[in-house]
């Protein structure tokens, strides 16, 4: 809290690197299986 009456919450940031799984997930077996199944069964997307 400060003089201007606002409550400020500092946010931390998770930096992107190889270890956070973002890139790894792209090439994971699960992702490949998903892509393969999409092609055949799920063109519109599971939320479509």
């Amino acid at each position: 809290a400060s003089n201007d009456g606002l409550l400020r919450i500092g946010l931390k940031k998770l930096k992107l690197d190889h270890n956070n799984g973002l890139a790894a997930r792209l090439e994971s077996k699960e992702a490949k299986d998903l892509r393969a199944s999409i092609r055949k069964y799920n063109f519109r997307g599971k939320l479509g």
Partner: protein
Amino acid sequence: DGSDTDIVALKNYMDAQYFGEIGVGTPPQKFTVIFDTGSSNLWVPSTKCYFSVPCYFHSKYKSSESSTYKKNGKTAAIRYGTGAISGFFSEDNVKIGDIVVKRQEFIEATREPSVTFLVAKFDGILGLGFKEISVGNATPVWYNMVKQGLVKEPVFSFWLNRNVEEEEGGELVFGGMDPNHFKGKHTYVPVTQKGYWQFDMGDVLIDGKESGYCNGGCSAIADSGTSLLAGPTTVVTMINHAIGAVGVVSQECKAVVEQYGQTIMDLLLTEAHPKKICSQVGLCTFDGTRGVSAGIESVVDEKDGRSSGLGDAMCSACEMAVVWMQNQLRRNQTQDRILNYVNELCERLPSPMGQSAVECGSISSMPSVSFTIGGKIFDLSPHEYILKVGEGAAAQCISGFMGLDIPPPRGPLWILGDMFMGRYHTVFDSGKLRVGFAEAA
């Protein structure tokens, strides 16, 4: 309710996360939470969580060590894309910054089966959405903040620091906005559906040119709990094509272009009602507003009682092809070029809820993508919508756009996550029921 869980599913993608610290109980027990405008409950792991591995990697709330704990005991469960959390409601004081919100309902999670929570850097989630979407009708933290007179205005705002060189993650301000973190004036739009911070949005521009799909209006949700941007497959495919993103090749889409492409174009040129074209060519049925799948499935390659879902896919492909062609005709492209372009688009479909890789070396030549909100244009440059992971030769680049198809009446819908809220300082004003965006500073 399926329509709501559709949207929550995006919470899988928590790769560029912003989180903060809160205290629960007296004395405060510390937890790292995601401040999420796309949900409305507060949950933290419970010390009574015995059988879920993620609980052993995170801080856990111990009610017996809090002098302000009040028992509730009502069971609760929240579904996410790859799993769910479940547990029971409790009541205690919650410390956020220097203020203490008294008698706050929250969920003590006793089961976190998803691997998402195992690898997560945060312990729980603090929802900043409306009570209307709160599980168990629990009152969200910010409602109590306002009710207990802890903030002067019923407003909160986000500044997310997108500068990768800087340690500071950002700032969530309750009670107003910090003038140091935005430039100019905010553009405000009314909240159209209380629950999420949802508002009406106009067209999406690619390299300054209309994509056409949201000409008639789309909805959007400002969601701090989502890292990326998600929107209709029709538009994301166009973006993928423009930025060279790897996509899924759709044979159904190619078949539609090959067999019906010319017919669709002829019908568009004769100024037939575009929404009726796919039903006219027999790929969809018209429901009064748009083409929908007739539910006729191909049985040719049916195995083990499963059909290929081809009928549905062909209808969707046709609906997209109509938008793509219409857009190109508006730009006076030749018919050959249009058919070729649409055929190329069929190779760039985004994986549903998946991410698409792009060439890191091409980022500077990629087009801007812009959103029309409140009649104003909000640009994102390629450096803002592409995530670069790693450095040097090992660097990988991922498009920030994902496909998400939500049917009317809630959709078509865009989810504007941290990627958008990083570029644009975002104000959530519950008093005037509006959302505002201004250039972040």
